[in-house]
């Protein structure tokens, strides 16, 4: 458990909305999957301190200015939204997917990253999730086309295709032992796949994360994650209360991996707080998660498995959190929220003024 609440470091501004963020394994770079079809990058190794502002703050005895991280040129090559990014644990390689079905492997060893390989139709449409095996040799992907595919990270060759999940596959996670893969779908079913055999060997029930509202399928297993040792499987999304507007309360179910028994069902918020979008397991033994509200504001939160409630929830001035990334040191946290305008604002549109929303990236230090 952190000794004190997360300490704000800075806020990185973006021009467009972001799907997901990740730190590089060496902690020097931050990557973001953009809903503008680009991968955005920032250099965290050499923060710039505004000199004049610092002097001014010192003179006035006010809060020191925030460091500025340099934005590096973005990477193009995707269509629609960049849906996910994943970093190789050892090599300087980045993997990215989009909502049109493309999968790209990149090398970022050089200043200008280069595509190592590019699979234009890795899936038929939206790739929901990509995840790397612990050794970084295999990449698993899943998507709207109800399939799960395994790829060689070295050359982008398809190694295996798994069908049989039955529904839109939202989420994936490799077990840390590398022997199993779990996949979660729209209807709240999680299947454990033995990919050597290509068959499902076990199911977990998270059907509370799904409902049929009139004709709308609402919900889905949005997140699957293991703790560091692979003893606990976390399954997250929302317990829907209705479709259309989509009111839903963020929920996480925890399962004991060894025997499949449910440990806990955690309601993170009310039915206005939306979906849990991501979870990360901190080296100190707790979960860090984010959710976005509908129509509430969402939040980021810290939770230890089995405790009644999250032991920390973030500032509600950070609405609609869609992604969280833990620095490899465990001493830094990045959370993306949403900023901009909701509603119609039609009078401005008639004047040709119609700004989109964007995703500030909030950087925190985590005292340990």
């Amino acid at each position, binding site marked *: 458990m952190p000794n004190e609440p997360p300490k704000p470091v800075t806020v990185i501004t973006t021009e467009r909305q972001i799907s997901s963020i990740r730190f590089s394994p060496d902690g020097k770079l931050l990557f973001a999957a953009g809903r503008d079809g680009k991968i955005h990058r920032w250099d965290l190794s050499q923060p710039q301190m505004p000199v004049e502002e610092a002097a001014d703050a010192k003179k006035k005895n006010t809060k020191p200015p925030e460091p500025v991280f340099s934005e590096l040129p973005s990477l193009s090559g995707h269509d629609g939204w960049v849906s996910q990014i994943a970093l190789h644990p050892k090599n300087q390689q980045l993997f990215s997917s989009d909502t049109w079905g493309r999968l790209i492997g990149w090398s970022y060893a050089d200043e200008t990253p280069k595509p190592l390989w590019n699979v234009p139709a890795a899936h038929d449409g939206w790739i929901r999730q990509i995840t790397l095996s612990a050794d970084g040799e295999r990449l698993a992907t899943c998507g709207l086309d109800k399939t799960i595919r395994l790829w060689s990270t070295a050359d982008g060759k398809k190694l295996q295709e798994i069908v049989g999940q039955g529904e839109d596959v939202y989420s994936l996670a490799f077990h840390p032992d590398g022997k199993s893969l779990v996949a979660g779908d729209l209807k709240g079913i999680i299947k454990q796949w033995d990919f050597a055999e290509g068959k499902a060997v076990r199911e977990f029930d998270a059907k509370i994360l799904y409902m049929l509202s009139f004709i709308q399928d609402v919900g889905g297993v949005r997140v699957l994650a293991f703790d560091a040792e692979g003893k606990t499987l976390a399954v997250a999304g929302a317990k829907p209360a209705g479709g259309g507007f989509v009111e839903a309360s963020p929920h996480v179910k925890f399962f004991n991996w060894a025997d499949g028994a449910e440990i806990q069902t955690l309601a993170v918020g009310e039915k206005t707080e939306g979906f849990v979008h991501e979870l990360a397991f901190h080296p100190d033994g707790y979960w860090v998660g984010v959710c*976005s509200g509908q129509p509430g504001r969402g939040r980021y939160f810290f939770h230890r498995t089995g405790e009644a409630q999250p032991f920390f929830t973030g500032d509600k001035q950070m609405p609609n959190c869609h992604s969280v990334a833990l620095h490899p040191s465990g001493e830094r946290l990045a959370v993306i929220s949403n900023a901009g305008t909701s509603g119609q604002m039609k009078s401005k549109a008639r004047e040709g003024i119609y700004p989109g929303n964007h995703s500030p990236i909030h950087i925190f230090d985590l005292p340990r």
Partner: protein
Amino acid sequence: MTHNPLCKPWEHRLSRRQWLGGAAGAAAGAFGLGDITSPAFAADLKKKYKQVLFIWLDGGISQLESWDPKPNTEFGGPFRTIPTSIPGVHFSELLPHTAKQMQHLAVVRSLCTQDDAHSSGIERIQRGDPKNRGVVYPYFSAAVTKLLGPNDSGLPPSVWIKPMSGGFIYKDAGFLGPQYGSLAFGDGKPPENLLRHSSVNDQDLLERSQLRTLADKRYSQTHRAGSTEANSFVYDMGLELMKRQDLFDASKFSPRDVERYGTHDLGRHLLLARRMLEAGVTFVKVNSYGWDSHGDNFNGSLSLVRKFDQPFAAIIEDLAATGMLDNVLVIAMSEFGRTPRVNGHLGRDHWPEAWSLVMAGCGVKRGVVVGSTNDNGTYVNSEPYDIGHMFHTWFNALGINSQKTEYNNNGQPLPIAHEGCHPVKELLA
């Protein structure tokens, strides 16, 4: 003798004579065409019955995830586009079945309407948003059944197939009077207690009907005729529907059609709508609820639009194959579109500024797209069309001269569509 306290005459003012007049193909005046000040079209209408299928996607379908996609733009969202059967016309990838029917469709991409609230917007759209003259205008359903007059199906002129509850929805009729309301089949089921009780045989039923007729006659001697006729109408409608119980019998649908339309509510209801049209109902409205996607719009659209796509394409294909599309006007729309801007809940909000609808069939040009929006889809960059333009267009597609025909509201002449608008010629065959 007092009025029956259980029966409100205003609920049932469509008379027995009017109802049977329709069933017998009686003169146009029998169904109130005499209330139309310029009924020159009446004789032509009688040559071939016109019908309407009106599909209402309540809450607001996103034009960007359906008829007017803007892929790879700021507000374009995650989805791809797909080509349709008309070269150069693309839909969202969420409409694969409908894309194959584009040769039958007319898409309007330049709607710009006035209301961004559901509660007022639904009424304004379905009443055609006429100028305010201190009267409540009829919904399109009531207007059509009034203006087209009766046909010989013997079935209710206007039915509404919808989720949840049913009943007789009289409010839609506005100043035309409650007789132009719609009979709603809640969850696609017939009115409660429609089926004759097993203990009542044919002879029993006949005798009961004769007794009722005698009672009506006696009642009418001391009451105004409208009340008696209203009561009779209700029974006649019930009797006609009892004869057509087969319309509601799902086992009569072919398994192939059930599969083609889908087993979800909208699929079942559109299949029932086809059957109602085949049986001769003049106006069939089908409602789908839950389209107000302020949150999780893209996953919502994945489910909603695809479940619309399958049965919509199927019914267009079927109506075209049987030739019915020549006489059935099909419209699918909402009260507004959705914002190009994606909000923090990954939803889209209300957007009446630039949105789309689709139509097909009777009197409508086929395989056309009319109007356009700018690159980001934020505004209309061709002539904007309000709902009044659509009402003019639809009336003309049905053979009704919308600029010469007027309602006669107890001596008050009223235009049938907003006189500041006009039919969209590019949409008319």
